[in-house]
């Protein structure tokens, strides 16, 4: 409940408060309601985790791109057309056999919007933000991801304007898959680090 407090009463109250604020600001000439529509449409339909999945899939098939992504993720990702707000400074962090990465923002909700869209509620909520720096293995196991003690778990706390994109390992059994087929295996959680890329359907 507290994790995502959407009681009916909050809903009604917030609907009224936000409507009042939008009305006032519109009447004052400070905002354009159509601009809000445009922003909402952008994050509902254009900017989301399919962007990130395309980046990951390309990194799996294109060694030059992969090297560029390691060297300067902001530029490499921009070369695919993904730029802007909450993606101004990107760093890609690569999982491996003995290295797992997971991203958090303990202080607010920093998240790489350009490649993942808007963050899910759990990512922005106190349980995840408080626990994952103290007990990442336990949190990951609750996501169904149990890692051996030989795997180093690195938690990236996004305390500045650098945004982190996890590059999961390419699943076995995907030889010959093209980028589009590979991108379908790249879940949003695998790019936060709370999951792995999907195994291909047998």
């Amino acid at each position, binding site marked *: 409940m*507290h994790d995502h407090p959407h009681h009916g009463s909050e809903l009604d109250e917030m609907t009224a408060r936000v409507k009042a604020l939008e009305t006032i600001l519109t009447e*004052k000439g400070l*905002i354009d309601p159509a601009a809000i529509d445009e922003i909402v449409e952008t994050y509902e339909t254009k900017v989301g985790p399919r962007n990130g999945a395309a980046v990951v899939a390309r990194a799996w098939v294109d060694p030059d791109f992969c090297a560029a992504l390691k060297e300067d993720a902001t530029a490499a990702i921009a070369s695919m057309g993904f730029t802007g707000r909450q993606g101004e400074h990107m760093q890609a962090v690569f999982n491996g056999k003995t290295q797992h990465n997971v991203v958090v923002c*303990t202080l*607010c909700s920093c998240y790489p919007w350009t490649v993942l869209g808007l963050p899910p509620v759990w990512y*922005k909520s106190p349980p995840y933000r408080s626990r994952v720096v103290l007990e990442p293995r336990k949190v990951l196991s609750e996501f169904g991801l149990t890692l051996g003690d030989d795997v180093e778990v690195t938690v990236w706390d996004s*305390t500045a304007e650098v945004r982190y994109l996890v590059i999961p390992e390419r699943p076995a059994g995907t030889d010959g898959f093209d980028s589009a087929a590979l991108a379908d295996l790249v879940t949003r959680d695998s790019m936060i680090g709370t999951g792995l890329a999907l195994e291909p359907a047998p």
Partner: protein
Amino acid sequence: MMGPHDLGGRAGFGPVLPEEDEPIFHADWEKRALGLTLCCGALGYWGIDASRHARESLHPVTYYGSSYYAIWITALTALLIRHGEVSEAELASGKALAPGKRSDSKMQAAAVADVLAKGAPADRDITAPAAFAMGDRVRLSKLSPRGHTRLPGYARGKIGVVTKVHGTHVFPDAAAHGQGEQPTWLYTISIAGTELWGATAEPCTTVRLDAWERYLEPA
């Protein structure tokens, strides 16, 4: 300030609970809240640091008891009042009682795509050399500033290693309070789990965070 937002290592919030369907928005007012916040940012009164500080300055009961976009709207309203663009009387009546001051800066719908695609980079050029280099051992500051800071409580006083030098970025402790951008070298610091949590750390875990040079001293 180590306000309600400074959550790393705290306890008592219960399990992580992903939603069944994970909608991007849960109600129309959440959509409008996101849009209002971005549009009002374009008025130029505050940057992202002041905006974060307004949210983390909410009373803990409000911060922990409100959903995400409710926190945004409460903080946005406080910022608009502080800068004289909205009055309590207007909020009470639900109507504008005076024209806006910066209506010239209104973000037009046609400009949205460009504004979002451009973003607001935080890196700035300065000539001062970096005090630390890759591999340096550093201690994170014990300072407990009363205003905005981006050094989480759990990392204060702890020792880590510089694993990346990012360049010089806007210093949030200054920018949040209208003291200019004061660009400062930014580093990634790697801290062993055992350095943070002693023997209660999970095996083979590390935390990396980004820290400005003023948060660091040689160790």
